[in-house]
């Protein structure tokens, strides 16, 4: 009965989501009014007694570009934050806005690496890529209509001192622990919400597909790198050989130089390709965030189902008491409830049932509100994803074209040098 109500609401929700979507396009975020950059990274050490612990800090610079806007923000600010602080921020956001697909942080440890990719956290290449990833994270949050206006987020950007305290004061840590625990339990629902089930499955598929893609791509690129570098060996042999030849010498030497350039020329494009891989990785992690939202929805639904089950049990109990059916114990020991006792019990149960119904009602509201908000944000996410992935893949294709043109050009030169041999 109550379930029907919730289901009927879903159609309405869908309509609302669509109209909200239209509205979202124009919805504000702070990125409309300010610029955010993570410009530098520095290595620091904690001054602890004997053990010198190194860590990296990143410089966050902001500038308000829209002079007419909100005066409470600093016009300019710059401060240093380390990765763990970003993690705090993100956890806080997740806990505070559980129905939002919170943008992911760049990877803590390097995954899907290959030969040339630094995996040491202090390697300058790694640090630079992390810097770019952190900037991207901030931009994502800053362009979200809801997240971007969060006070803690703004404090993260601009509040140099005391941000760590202020975020603790929100009490999110306690919430975080309990919620994390809950998420790790697998849940069996009586009547799972088909929409969220579908989204959860989709998130799972996205994760698998991106994971496979990234894994194969890394191996592919490793081979490509090897093939190109081996051509430097050709270059060396040709150069040595050209010294021994009269008529062939010139052609061989020139061809040798081009072969060397073939080997040297692979580094840049592959560096560029890593950026596209990073963009795919972001969506791999996004898929995880999406699934997290679905699981939270499941938790709320579970809560509701538990509340409903409890009320049902109590109602049955009350029924039994009213009909005079005594418990087994009382039959055994032969005591029978008097009218008074029975009435007392019934009243107590009634009270409990009412409490339970109130509980159901609030759980329902919570679930309904959550689902509504979540679906809106998920839709926003999906649209963003389509646009982003399209751009990433297009960029990848353009890069491949560039690499093919380069290869074609070099080999054409090589052939021309060789054909020029008299």
């Amino acid at each position: 009965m109550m379930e029907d109500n919730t289901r009927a609401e879903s159609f309405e929700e869908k309509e609302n989501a669509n109209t909200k979507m239209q509205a979202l396009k124009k919805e504000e975020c702070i990125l409309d009014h300010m610029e955010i950059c993570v410009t530098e990274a520095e290595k620091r050490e904690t001054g602890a007694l004997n053990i010198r612990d190194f860590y990296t800090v990143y410089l966050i610079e902001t500038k308000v570009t829209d002079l007419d806007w909100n005066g409470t923000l600093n016009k300019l600010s710059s401060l240093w934050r380390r990765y763990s602080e970003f993690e705090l921020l993100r956890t806080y956001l997740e806990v505070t806005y559980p129905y939002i697909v919170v943008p992911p942080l760049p990877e803590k440890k390097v995954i899907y690496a290959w030969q040339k990719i630094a995996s040491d956290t202090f390697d300058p290449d790694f640090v630079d890529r992390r810097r770019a990833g952190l900037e991207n994270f901030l931009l994502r949050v800053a362009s979200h209509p809801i997240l971007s206006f969060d006070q803690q987020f703004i404090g993260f950007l601009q509040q140099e001192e005391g941000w760590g305290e202020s975020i603790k004061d929100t009490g999110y840590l306690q919430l975080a622990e309990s919620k994390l625990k809950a998420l790790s339990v697998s849940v069996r629902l009586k009547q799972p919400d088909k929409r969220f089930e579908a989204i959860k499955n989709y998130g799972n598929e996205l994760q698998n597909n991106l994971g496979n893609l990234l894994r194969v791509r890394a191996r592919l690129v490793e081979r490509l790198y090897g093939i190109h570098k081996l051509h430097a060996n050709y270059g060396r042999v040709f150069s040595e050989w050209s010294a021994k030849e009269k008529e062939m010498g010139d052609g061989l030497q020139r061809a040798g130089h081009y072969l060397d350039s073939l080997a040297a020329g692979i580094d840049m494009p592959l560096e560029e390709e890593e950026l596209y891989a990073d963009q795919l990785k972001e969506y791999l992690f996004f898929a995880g965030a999406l699934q997290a939202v679905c699981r939270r929805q499941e938790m709320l639904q579970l809560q509701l189902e538990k509340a409903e089950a409890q009320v049902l049990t109590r109602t049955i109990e009350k029924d039994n008491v009213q009909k005079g059916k005594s418990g087994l114990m009382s039959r055994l020991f032969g005591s029978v409830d008097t009218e008074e006792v029975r009435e007392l019990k019934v009243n107590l149960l009634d009270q409990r049932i009412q409490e339970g119904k109130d509980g159901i009602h609030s759980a329902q509201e919570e679930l309904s509100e959550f689902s509504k908000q979540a679906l809106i944000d998920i839709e926003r996410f999906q649209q963003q994803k389509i646009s982003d992935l399209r751009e990433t893949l297009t960029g990848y294709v353009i890069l491949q074209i560039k690499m093919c043109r380069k290869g074609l050009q070099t080999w054409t030169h090589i052939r021309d040098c060789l054909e020029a041999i008299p």
Partner: protein
Amino acid sequence: MADPEEAAVLEVSSECKSTLLKKEDSKDTDIMSNYSTSLEGSVVASPSIESFSTLPDQEMSEFGLDTRDLQVKVDNPQKHLDTLETYITFRITTRTSRAEFDETEYVVRRRYNDFIWLRQKLVEAFPTHLIPPLPGKHTLIAQLDRYSKEFIVARMALLHRFLNRVANHPVLSCNQSMKVFLTAKPSEFLIHRKSRQGFLGRMSTSFHNLAAVYMMRQRTQEFEQVREYVTSLGEKLNSVDRISQRIHKERQDYLSELNQMHPIFTLWSASEPELSPVLLAMAAAIEHNTQAQQHVLVTFTPNIVQPLKEYLLYIEAVKEALTRRDSVQIEYELTVEELKKKRAEKDLLLAEEQTSGSGGFSLGGASLWKSAGEVRDDKLQKLAQAIPHLVKQVEEHQDKVECANENLRADLDRWQYEKKDELKKLFVSLANQQIKYYEQCLAAWEEVLPDMKVVDTTSSYSPSNKLQLQVPS
């Protein structure tokens, strides 16, 4: 990709050999009909073998396709089952306008061992000429199965080139053994095959140990330089071969990764309704890349490995020719030494005669039966015979050396010219293969680009625009 053709390509014709032998007395004017049963009975192998009937031997000739007065072709391999063994024969087709040949066209079948015999005969007949190389019995075996189509086709190509090189050589092509090889009917050929080999070929080996001392000096500077150059070239080509093999291996791994990549896109497109065209386009482009790469891999062995290996064999042949020339020179020098020694001996004996008269201790020595003087006279008499003989030998050997040098010089000049051409061709073909590969890949990617760039009207703000700025141009 299992190719059923590769397993057992050729029709076994056990009847074939026996009919050839039995028909020795037949007066078939048309030699072709002699083999008609075998040709019809055998499954002429796949088109790719037939295509070898038109091997690019034309580059060998300086004058172009048809103007050579001796044209030879090796094709049409067939398997034979004997009671003792299984072997492959090849059809040798000859067209000639030379007077020393009775007919203008010949068709015979020969097997690999027959080629070895021919080469051996040529080496014996022309020790100071550069004899083209034959594919080794086992050079290709490490990679290929002995009766596989690829092996047979590869070997056949090399045999064809060998025979053509001989045919194009002004001196080698006139050799009697060559004529026999090209024209003799099976039974006649067998007789030639079984005749004993000459001794001349063996001579060079016996000198090598003695000549260790002589080797160091008096090698003609000219030929030493050639040997050095050729050795160095061999090293370079060996390096190129090794590098090519490594690259080939990396390419194979690359291909297997490519083959895993496009199905991922296809699978992914199933869960992405709006992105599906983009993802399927990616899958298609990658698949085309796979095909292009496949083609590179397939042409690797015939276009790169085999010509390289053949050239390395040719370099060995050059070294052998240089060694044979050295032997001739060493022989000459030994003879000169011998003459010098004998003359010195004679001078010494004559000097003795004058100083010591007929008696006393002397080089001539004394024995129980003769006096020292008599022994001396004996010796002088022997020397009087030996020395003129040696003088003549020295002259002969000197001629031989000059002749050998001339022969080798001429052959080396030809070889240098050929070598430049052939190596140039080899590497140009390598480059062309890569060019073709990149052209195919480029086309594949450019084809899908329009499918991806559809402007998205439904997207809201995109921080990915800011992402694009981060990508270095």
